[in-house]
């Protein structure tokens, strides 16, 4: 067999096996809306970990982390810091979110806003913002998948064809099995990713330098500036690092799909335990950074840093390993893409369409509409991924900065009794508008700070000020507090 055929058949086998697991995952369960979106709230610690790890370790971690280490250097270290800190935050907010979720039967992030602030338009606004930021993230996964499969198959499958096959498979298993598919496919994906990341991160420095230590020694001698901030950039210094780490740590669990995943847990304790082990998963990202740093010396001068890892793997490993990396990379795009599509479809059907346009719909009808939306969204994101890929990175940064604007509404809603619906809505509008303006007009970073972080500060300030100044309507948080049985007035 030619190297091309070997790599191609391994990628194909992995993707088909993963999808088969996804289809099978839901067959033993009757797919009601609650089963489809939050797995009947029955996920134990292991499943919870698989789901969360499956969502967080996306193609951006795979291609982007090595790409950042390659083209930017030092600033890429923020990737090692934020996930641990995100779990410190999650330790405090996920358990109470879960408690409220069980009480009110929540399945989505807008459900949470609806229960906390009693306003369906606020919930609808949260859905619109959520879907708007999910779509570019989804598009990024598909584009990443196209690149990975094309390079790993030695061009045997073109980008567009790879994306079309993958999208039909993942839309299929989400349609059939819902969130259970995502958790089950993650089993294979996480296993392959760990093997691929660690073996590449150790083997590549070993082949070219005789080990990770000598590799860094060479880099420290030849390009010492690359290893510390601001690295190869001019404006990503320590202030940028701190603001970006804070933004991403606070925002990581504000993505509508990660937020919704907390509702799948069997208990609040499952979520607490999960936050203890999740940071350790981040250690594997170090190996991907090592690959990016090695590539600086081995394959210098690449136009697109995101290709550095695949380029070096193709140069170093036999074809079958390229197939494994390609297959793992494809699943690393498909799993997050699946949960993004699932979440966006549910947000649209349950929190936007039903409350605003069709109040009489039953849960079963919502579930049907959501499944139709799975197909529609798959086609939309496929179209976007094929026909527009120019401003991808800026769209992702915009998405992360955008969803973090939910943070004040969530945290103040949980821990500050005086916060009002009007305060949260104005704060969020200010935050999102500010983020969009600063990032889309290329003003990020601004004054050395991450623009999303600056917007978050405005958002917080406006939420608090408006909540204090504007008159409070009676029916608000008080009932929720007394219902949860703690320090009620």
């Amino acid at each position: 067999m030619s190297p091309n055929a070997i790599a191609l058949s391994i990628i194909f086998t992995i993707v088909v096996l993963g999808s088969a697991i996804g289809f099978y995952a839901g067959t033993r369960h009757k797919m009601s809306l609650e089963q489809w979106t939050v797995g009947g709230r029955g996920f134990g610690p292991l499943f919870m970990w698989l789901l969360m790890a499956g969502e967080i370790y996306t193609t951006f971690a795979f291609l982007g982390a090595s790409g950042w280490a390659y083209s930017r250097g030092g600033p890429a270290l923020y990737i090692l810091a934020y996930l641990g800190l995100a779990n410190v935050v999650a330790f405090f907010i996920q358990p109470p979110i879960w408690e409220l979720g069980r009480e009110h039967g929540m399945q989505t992030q807008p459900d949470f806003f609806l229960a906390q602030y009693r306003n369906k338009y606020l919930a609808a606004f949260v859905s619109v913002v959520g879907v708007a930021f999910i779509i570019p993230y989804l598009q990024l996964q598909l584009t990443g998948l196209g690149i990975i499969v094309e390079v790993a198959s030695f061009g045997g499958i073109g980008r567009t064809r790879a994306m079309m096959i993958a999208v039909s498979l993942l839309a299929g298993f989400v349609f059939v099995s819902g969130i259970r598919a995502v958790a089950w496919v993650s089993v294979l994906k996480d296993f392959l990713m760990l093997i691929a990341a660690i073996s590449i991160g150790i083997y590549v420095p070993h082949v070219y330098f005789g080990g990770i230590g000598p590799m860094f020694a060479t880099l420290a001698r030849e390009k010492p500036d690359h290893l510390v901030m601001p690295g190869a950039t001019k404006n990503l210094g320590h202030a940028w690092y701190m603001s970006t780490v804070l933004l991403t740590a606070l925002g990581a669990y504000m993505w509508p799909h990660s937020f919704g995943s907390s509702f799948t847990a069997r208990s609040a304790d499952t979520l607490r335990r999960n936050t203890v082990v999740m940071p350790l998963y981040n250690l594997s990202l170090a190996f991907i950074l090592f690959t990016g740093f090695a590539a600086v010396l081995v394959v210098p001068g690449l136009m697109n840093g995101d290709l550095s890892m695949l380029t070096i793997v193709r140069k170093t490993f036999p074809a079958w390993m390229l197939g494994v990396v390609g297959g793992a990379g494809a699943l690393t795009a498909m799993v997050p893409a699946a949960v993004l599509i699932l979440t966006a479809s549910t947000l649209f059907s349950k929190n936007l369409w039903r409350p605003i346009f069709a109040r009489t719909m039953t849960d079963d009808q919502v579930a049907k509409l959501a499944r139709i939306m799975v197909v529609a969204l798959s086609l939309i994101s496929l179209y976007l991924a094929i026909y527009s890929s120019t401003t991808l990175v800026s769209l992702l940064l915009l998405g992360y900065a955008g969803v973090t604007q939910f943070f004040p509404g969530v945290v103040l809603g949980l821990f500050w009794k005086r916060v009002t619906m009007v305060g949260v809505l104005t704060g969020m509008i200010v935050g999102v508008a500010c983020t969009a303006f600063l990032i889309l007009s290329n003003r990020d970073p601004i004054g050395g700070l991450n623009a999303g972080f600056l917007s978050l500060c405005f958002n917080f300030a406006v939420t608090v000020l408006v909540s204090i100044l504007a008159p409070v309507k009676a029916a608000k948080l008080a009932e929720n507090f007394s219902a949860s049985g703690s320090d009620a007035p």
Partner: protein
Amino acid sequence: MRRPSLGAIFLALIPFFAMCFSVSAWDRIYPMIFGLPFNIFWLLSWIVLTSICIGAMYRLETSRTSKDSVRRHRENELE
């Protein structure tokens, strides 16, 4: 929602200080430890230490919760 204990909040601030706010103190190449530049070594160690901090927060909060529920149970009986 019940506020977390001061002890847990203190434990939570440690990783934020170590991995985020103190960046200018550790963002350098030397001394290299186990062949890693100092900043990378520092962050990798703190990934593990963060997990340990959250583990300590877990023990602190869960022991508090179980005491709480016992107390609430007794209060209910008195009423």
